[in-house]
């Protein structure tokens, strides 16, 4: 592990400042104990765990049918991802078949979720830099408007707006309702057009560029050593996306591009996510165009919550979430509940890069960098 960089300033006084756990830009409950030398950060002590809910232990007490709805509470901004990771692990260990239509529906849900999650990231990140009483709030409200459109789609699909319970071992719980496809196409067109507007609004703005370019650089080596994933990894020049590297849920059938930037700064991560918006929309359109007919689950009609039993065994399933690799390690003992469950949260690994890149930056950059990492604390603390 690289040593935490400590900058030596001769003689002058230092100030210790608590940022969080209750702070406007803590993105939940994150506490960073900053040591400041004037405006410059010289040391960071990151404290997590304020949102710990014993998620993994909870997973051992709930059956395979019950837990997917709870799994969505790990990363509540992109709930579909965690559900998908859990049911993938169950299907891997239990060797449960998933019908083609269900696989495609899962891809659709995952990509829409990525769009919704990136919308929230764009808004909150700009708010970190531009203030709740400034241009940042404007971008935030715009982005939230688009996220609401996507959540409307999820509401029509599952009846819920935040935590869905869409996936279940063996397939999906719901099929597309009538008229949903048209609504989805319309929303995708909207979002795609407005993404272009936001890009114009931000990238033509020199103040936005000076705040993001060259700020919070994660080098290629550091990214690999820490084990960051998702847009952070691709922003640092490493072409790694599980949808390409280890395709799951028939991702190999879809045409899309994995964006890679080499600069490793906040702007590179921004660019990666902006391209991902477009690529997700592209994949979602492909799903809508060629959705195969057939059953949506290989285990239709769940009669009791203990119905699904998984034979003895263990396995690790991983999916590419909006924030990176979300993995689920499952040990089954033949009963209706897992013996042991372990989550690999993308936010947790990504967040651990902060102590390596924060020393040396100004206080204002701390929030900009943290926003560009896009942590969700439900996933960090679990």
């Amino acid at each position, binding site marked *: 592990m690289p040593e935490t960089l400590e900058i030596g300033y001769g003689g002058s006084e230092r*100030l210790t400042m608590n940022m969080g756990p209750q702070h406007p830009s803590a993105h939940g409950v994150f506490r960073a104990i900053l040591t400041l030398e004037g405006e410059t950060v010289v040391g960071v002590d990151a404290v997590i765990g304020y949102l710990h809910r014993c998620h993994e232990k909870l997973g051992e007490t709930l059956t395979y049918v019950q837990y997917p709805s709870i799994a969505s509470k790990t990363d509540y901004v992109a709930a579909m991802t965690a559900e998908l990771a859990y049911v993938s692990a169950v299907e891997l260990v239990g060797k449960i078949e998933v019908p083609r239509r269900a696989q495609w529906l899962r891809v659709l849900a995952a990509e829409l979720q990525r769009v919704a999650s990136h919308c929230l990231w764009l808004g909150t990140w700009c708010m970190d830099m531009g203030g709740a009483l400034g241009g940042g709030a404007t971008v935030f409200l715009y982005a939230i408007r688009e996220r609401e459109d996507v959540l409307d789609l999820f509401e029509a699909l599952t009846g819920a707006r935040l935590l869905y319970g869409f996936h279940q071992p063996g397939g999906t719980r719901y099929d597309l309702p009538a008229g949903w496809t048209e609504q989805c196409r319309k929303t995708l067109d909207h979002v795609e057009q407005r993404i272009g507007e936001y890009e114009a609004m931000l990238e033509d703005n020199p103040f936005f560029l000076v705040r993001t370019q060259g700020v919070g650089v994660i080098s290629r080596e550091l990214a690999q050593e820490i084990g960051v994933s998702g847009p952070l990894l691709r922003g640092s020049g490493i072409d790694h996306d599980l949808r390409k590297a280890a395709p799951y849920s028939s991702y190999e059938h879809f045409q899309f591009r994995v964006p890679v930037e080499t600069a490793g700064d906040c702007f590179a991560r921004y660019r990666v996510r902006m391209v991902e918006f477009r690529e997700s929309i592209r994949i979602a359109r492909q799903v809508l165009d060629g959705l195969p007919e057939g059953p949506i689950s290989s285990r239709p009609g769940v009669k009791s919550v203990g119905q699904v039993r998984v034979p003895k065994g263990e396995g690790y399933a991983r999916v590419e979430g909006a924030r990176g690799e979300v993995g689920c390690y499952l040990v089954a003992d033949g009963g209706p509940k897992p013996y042991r469950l372990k989550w690999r949260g993308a936010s947790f690994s990504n967040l651990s890069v902060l102590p390596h890149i924060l020393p040396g930056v100004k206080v204002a950059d701390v929030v900009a960098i943290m926003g560009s990492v896009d942590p969700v604390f439900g996933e960090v603390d679990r």
Partner: protein
Amino acid sequence: MTPLAHDALVGFIVLNVVIGMVTYVTLLERKFAARMQSRIGPYYVGPHGLLQPIADAIKLFIKEDVVPTRADRWVYNLAPIVFLLPCVLIFATLPFAPGLGVADLNIGVLFFLAVSSLEIVGLFMGGWGSNNKYALLSAMRAVNQIISYDLPFVFAAFVPVVLAGSLQMSVIVTAQQGAWLGIVPKWFVFYPVIGQLAFVAFLVATLAAENRVPFDILEAESELVAGFRVEYSGMKFALIQLGEYAHMIGTSFLAALLFLGGWLGPGSDHVLVGALWFLLKAMFIFLVVTWVRWSFVRIRVDQILAISWKLLMPASIVLLLAAAFWVAARGGHGV
């Protein structure tokens, strides 16, 4: 009526008009921002939210006044008043129409600029007295920023002064009478090249002097929560807010006076029409500032200082010199 009583009466009226304006300018800004963000804004108190500022004022009156135990009580309690005072004093020399104002001093512009930079004292007192690290950092930033931006602010403001040949505000306005080619008014903003550049420099410096986004690093709620006023509540908070908006309106009026011809406009021979024109121009400046505020992200403290010392400062000095040479070349007449 004795002259003293007359002055006191006029001062009282102007003060109350300013405070009334401040409360409603907040509503204007909120409505404007709401339109920009595809929202509606305040709506439920009174028709179209027109009574919202009054509701806000009542709410702030009945809030508990909290003083942190570790605060420096004297400094902490005095700071809002020290902050508010220069912010309303700047209206003393503003003539709202010919003969309508508290005092049309022959050093009007100088008085305005000198007094408006005094707000930093109250601001630093608040930041220091709160005994809070966020507030302290914010106060240090404020001193940095306001000292850096007062110089370009003054230099840019002196371009019209040099062109008009007077520091007296009413003289500066009358110097902008008439029109080029019969259509373009001879406002200093339309003065070839120098006028436009000085106007832009003045507006940028205004943004910084008013601590508005993108230069609002001392409020910076995403890192410093609320900056120097993080510990203030109730009426003390209201006083600080009042001072900030009064300062903002004051500088908008100054910009309208220096560059947009003050009260000049069709029918401005009548005092009230002139005052209305002046108000409209000042509100235009205010809305431009608001527009910038709600579209930009905040920049960092080192970048703010770099903009001031490396760009704005040399540019405004060059502009001032150019204006001076121009006036000298024309034998002492700017217009």
